[in-house]
């Protein structure tokens, strides 16, 4: 056990830190987040800069344009990005989910076609899993795909799809066999969002902005070579995606929480906090450290054995609820000013926005109830509830 950086890690961290100091544009630093951050060209430029410096797809194999770096570098990368309050690469879904799924299940042609533009932020991806009738119970998807003359013909509706309004491609879970039920008969496709018959309608969220969308598919013709995995084998492929969605996210989330708590402490300094609020600040700091070192333990196990430890499964669950408490506490410290809208609120309405946005954290990427089921059944080995 040695929690310090190795010489190699220390070098990587130092180089990254000075690169961030030089390269991060002032107006992107400390951005509060939200959909509109993607509107302008700055985010693409920033993402390309990350890519050109070799920081996009850091742990991906070099043959796919990645950095071939150990997972510890990825952890350091996220820590330093958070420390500098740098926004993430715009290809959140591409790098976090679509890319790893293509690496695991894709053909050589798919890998050479999709991975490089994804890392370079030339192409943006979205995820089309959830449907009006299939949320937590993903196996209930009904969007259909039918093979016809070298194409899959896709019909149906997806919902809550983040980034779909700016996306070039979608990882889409469809039902190819209408007679099969549940996990059988599902097929995983890569769909061109610019194809005819694809229609995206933004959905306005609790924060007032539109980060996610409905997607309608009407007789969309998807070339057969866009199949990922086997026809009827979509469930296994989707599980790879979800594993990456919840798994590799852990470090990014902890780093975000650390920034949030740093800002909370600064807020308490600025506005004052009573003893009960100070107790809660210390609680949140403590739990954030606990998540950090839980991630380290999981990562160390991954490096040593090739398998992440079971403790990694709790990161997202703990983070999401912590972020809700932290942002609520910030509003409490703001006092009556918490009621002010963006234009008049202190700190540009940062906390008001963050608090509302945090309500989505326990819903997106698996609800807290579903994650507790997973911990109970898969980690603790309790009897299955379904």
């Amino acid at each position, binding site marked *: 056990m040695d929690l310090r950086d190795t010489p190699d890690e220390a070098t990587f961290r130092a180089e990254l830190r000075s690169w961030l100091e030089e390269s991060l544009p002032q107006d992107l630093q400390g951005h509060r987040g939200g959909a509109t951050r993607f509107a302008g060209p700055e985010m693409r430029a920033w993402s390309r800069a990350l890519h050109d410096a070799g920081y996009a797809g850091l742990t991906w194999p070099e043959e796919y344009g990645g950095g071939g770096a150990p997972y510890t570098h990825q952890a350091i990368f996220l820590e330093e990005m958070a420390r500098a309050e740098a926004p993430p690469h715009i290809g959140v879904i591409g790098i976090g989910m679509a890319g790893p799924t293509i690496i695991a299940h894709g053909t050589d042609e798919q890998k050479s076609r999709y991975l490089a533009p994804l890392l370079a932020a030339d192409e943006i991806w979205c995820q089309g899993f959830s449907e009006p009738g299939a949320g937590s119970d993903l196996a209930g998807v009904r969007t259909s795909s039918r093979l016809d003359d070298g194409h899959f013909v896709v019909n149906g509706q997806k919902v809550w799809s983040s980034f779909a309004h700016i996306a070039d491609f979608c990882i889409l879970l469809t039902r190819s066999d209408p007679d099969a039920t549940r996990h059988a008969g599902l097929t995983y496709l890569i769909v061109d969002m610019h194809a005819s018959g694809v229609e995206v309608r933004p959905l306005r969220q609790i924060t007032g902005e539109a980060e996610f969308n409905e997607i309608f598919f009407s007789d969309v013709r998807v070339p057969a070579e866009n199949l990922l995995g086997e026809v009827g084998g979509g469930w296994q492929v989707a599980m790879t995606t979800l594993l990456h969605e919840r798994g590799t996210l852990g470090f990014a989330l902890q780093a975000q929480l650390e920034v949030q708590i740093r800002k909370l402490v600064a*807020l308490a300094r600025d506005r004052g906090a009573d003893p009960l609020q100070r107790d809660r600040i210390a609680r949140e700091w403590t739990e954030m450290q606990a998540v950090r070192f839980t991630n380290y333990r999981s990562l160390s196990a991954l490096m*040593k054995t090739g398998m992440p430890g079971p403790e990694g499964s709790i990161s997202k669950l703990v983070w999401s609820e912590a972020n809700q408490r932290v942002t609520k506490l910030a509003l409490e410290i703001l006092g009556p000013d918490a009621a002010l809208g963006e234009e008049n609120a202190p700190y540009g309405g940062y906390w008001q926005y963050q608090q509302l946005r945090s309500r989505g954290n326990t819903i997106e990427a698996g609800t807290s109830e579903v994650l507790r089921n997973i911990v*109970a059944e898969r980690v603790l080995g309790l009897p299955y509830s379904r």
Partner: protein
Amino acid sequence: MDFTFTPVQEALREQAREFLAATPEPTWAQLAELGWTGVSIAEEDGGAGLSFLEEAVLFEELGRALYRGPYFATIGLTLPALLSEDRAAIASGETTWTLALGPLVPDLDSAEHVAIVGGDGIYELEGGERELLAATDESRPLGVVRGGEPGRRLADSTVLAEIEARSQTALALEACGVAWLALEDAIEYASSRVQFGKKIGVYQAVSHPLADAYTRVELSRSLALWAAWCVATDDDQASIAAAAAKSYAGESAVAVCETAIQSLGGIGFTWEHRLQRLYKRALGIESFGTSGTRLRAEIAASLIEQDEASSGSLAPVKVTQGG
């Protein structure tokens, strides 16, 4: 960065678990024979010259086994204050110590020597009377010393910071051992007990609190092991890490035991089931020394008042308009 135990440390854990299962009430001589009493004591004093990390493994296992004896008092509490010859006598299994850090002194029934905190240092107590008190947690006897006077001077009071960090971390580790076992009992019961025609573990009102208990156990372990590493390497963050670990792991062990008791229904409420003993150890740990609330007040002070100048990362909230 490597946050795993070495194979040797893992083997020590295995040995400890087997030994304590076979020997629930080991004597000090037996622990000395295993080499446990001299783990972090220097080789020239007859110890193994290892670190607090190996002791951390033992504290976790001793907590799990609800060990009753002066290991915590001697190794977790008093050791940093002791001189070379005293350490040698501990490593060889000849003697044991406890320290009167507050009015209630742990393991006063079994520890041979008592150390006390004077104005400027730590001294061995000479004379005085020991009075044992009834304690909720029967596995950790408490008492008070009356009268007596400072005898041999052992250490400067500057060692108190190290003693605080070490003892808080040891207690956090014990709490992890306690909480794990309580959780295991609850999982086993929820996986076999049938009511309303189903194993009770399928009911989310049972399984979700257990998932949360698991979460608390893992988070507690992460903090306790972080603190243990800080103590072992004399890291700058040892004090704050130990405060975080003790407050979180202590309170979590109590909460986990409570969840377990509820999960077992009537059986969980009986004297016969070991849960009541695990629960009482957890309560004992929580109330020992500095409370969680007090420790968090210290953490908050160090975050809000003290770190401002030293930490560039605690820059004021920076937000850009719009977006």
